[in-house]
């Protein structure tokens, strides 16, 4: 499909982007770097949700809770009890895995809409507990004063350094995710998404595949939570509240859930929109809600879906849909 010349330009463009991202702290304002750090840690959360939706057809709303639990792990173990650097983070991920196992084993006994509701409820249980427990988790106040460290002489309190660490972590995460998606496991997961009954009939352990996917996504969510907590310095229950969970779902769909890069595209758009919109109005939620409605109605495959269709010469897909009032099942 693409000519050799086309490929050359494409690779050049990708390289340019990559260099721009890597060199960001050298030319951009501090607030821009901070915004990109936000994009990265929310990106992890979006990737976590998007992986399950896109690859597994599972809409899970617990990811924000995993994000938060990891943050509390850092706060409780690292900050309050002085557990040193890599150990506190590893333990936090471990704690998330325990929760993810319990939730995953129960929730995956259901599917589709019920799965969504149950994961939503689980996420809110965690939120409610964090909100109300004051002895360990300090309730509404949460934990504050968390700071990143100086590791091997590099001070990660510096925004630039923190950004590079986050970027590297994200790149690694995406790399491993790519391998997973294209592995036999990934294909099995896609199979369960397409037709779980058939997969079961063929002898695949659908339940366990789903549980495994759930656990993998929990790891990504927890990485995001760890970065976020170091960066903002606080962890509070509101990190896991319903509106945050919904926002993440929105980002993923906006970018295009079925595409590998969809979630991060959605995150970039959502976070930058927040920065831009908040300078003009406080009605960010309305703006993004409306965009979301339009996306679901006219381009459920998200931004990347639109771009792909345009690229393939299909014209603007939503125009067709507006003119064609569709009421039949798709």
């Amino acid at each position: 499909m693409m000519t050799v010349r086309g490929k050359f330009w494409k690779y050049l463009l990708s390289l340019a982007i990559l260099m721009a991202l890597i060199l960001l702290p050298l030319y951009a304002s501090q607030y821009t770097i901070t915004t990109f750090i936000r994009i990265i840690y929310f990106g992890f959360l979006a990737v976590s949700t998007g992986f399950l939706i896109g690859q597994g057809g599972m809409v899970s709303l617990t990811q924000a809770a995993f994000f938060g639990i990891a943050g509390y792990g850092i706060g409780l173990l690292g900050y309050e009890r002085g557990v040193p650097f890599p150990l506190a983070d590893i333990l936090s991920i471990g704690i998330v895995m325990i929760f993810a196992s319990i939730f995953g084993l129960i929730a995956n006994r259901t599917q589709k809409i019920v799965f969504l509701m149950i994961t939503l409820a689980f996420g809110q249980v965690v939120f409610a507990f964090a909100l109300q427990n004051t002895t360990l988790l300090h309730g509404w106040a949460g934990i504050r004063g968390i700071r990143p460290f100086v590791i091997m002489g590099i001070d990660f309190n510096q925004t630039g350094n923190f950004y590079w660490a986050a970027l590297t972590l994200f790149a690694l995460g995406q790399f491993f995710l790519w391998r997973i998606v294209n592995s036999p496991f990934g294909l099995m997961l896609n199979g369960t998404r397409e037709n779980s009954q058939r997969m079961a009939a063929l002898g695949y352990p659908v339940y366990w595949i789903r549980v495994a996917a759930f656990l993998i996504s929990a790891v990504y969510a927890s990485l995001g939570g760890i970065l976020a907590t170091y960066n903002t310095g606080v962890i509070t229950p509101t990190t896991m509240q319903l509106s945050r969970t919904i926002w993440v779902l929105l980002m993923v769909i906006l970018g295009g859930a079925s595409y590998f890069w969809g979630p991060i595209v959605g995150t970039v758009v959502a976070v930058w929109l927040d920065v831009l919109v908040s300078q003009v109005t406080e009605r960010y939620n309305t703006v993004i809600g409306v965009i979301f409605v339009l996306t679901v109605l006219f381009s459920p495959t998200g931004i990347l879906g639109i771009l792909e269709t345009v690229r393939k010469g299909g014209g603007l897909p939503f125009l067709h849909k507006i003119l064609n009032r569709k009421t039949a099942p798709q």
Partner: protein
Amino acid sequence: MDYKFVILILNGLTQAAILFVLGSGLTLAFGLMRVVNLSHGAFYMLGGYIGYSVVIATGNWPLALLAGGLSIALLGFVFERTMLSRVRGGDLPETLLTVALSMIIADQALVYWARNPVTLNVPTYLSPPIKLLGFTYPGFRFVMMGVSIIIALSLWLLLYRTKLGAAVRAGVDDRETVSALGVNIPVIYTAVFVLSAFLGGIAGVLGGSYLQLSPGGDAIILIYSLVVIILGGMGSLGGAVISSLILGQVISFGLAYAPQYSYFLIFIPMAIVLSIRPQGLFGRKL
């Protein structure tokens, strides 16, 4: 004090009244359409706020109740016809649309009703202090229980004594066959969604009168509604009754004995039922 328990039980029944009105519409809509309306909490909140404005303007509470319910019914109708019906067929897009709607409603409510928690003022004729066994209990709570019983009976009559109800019940069981039999399924879908929205708005006026309406309240209410229908079983009206009663008491006693964990406690019955019987107490096997 002996009467403490009586008060707690009455409180539980009051909670149950609201939970039932909230959950009944939602469970029917889910059972029939396989869509969980995640903007149900926003419907509650908006209905309550509209009722509040009506009370401020006219002082007429029953009017506010009606206004709250009907305005949300209208909203539901418009939403269903213009948006939901376009994406009918896939569960996910419909659910996502309701999610988006909830964000928009919640945000717009901030603009028009400011950000302060508000409570509807109930006229004194509806809230006489009732003296029972040596303590006083606000009469309005009995009004609420009365309203919810009326609604329960009406719904029951609707479902079991009318053609529409029969079609709804059949649709819950088997959509395709009902449609093949010539029943106009889209009309029924719209009707059920509108009914569910109406009930959500009514619940908002009720809840806003005895508690308060506040920004962010829609999230809490949504979770309550979900717990009611998950516990009771999706699609089951009887299940909604039973689970509201159970949860009402859990909330009331929880607030009395463990107020620090009040919000968290309601998930326990849900978690227990889910691990043993994922379809809820009276739900169909999914």
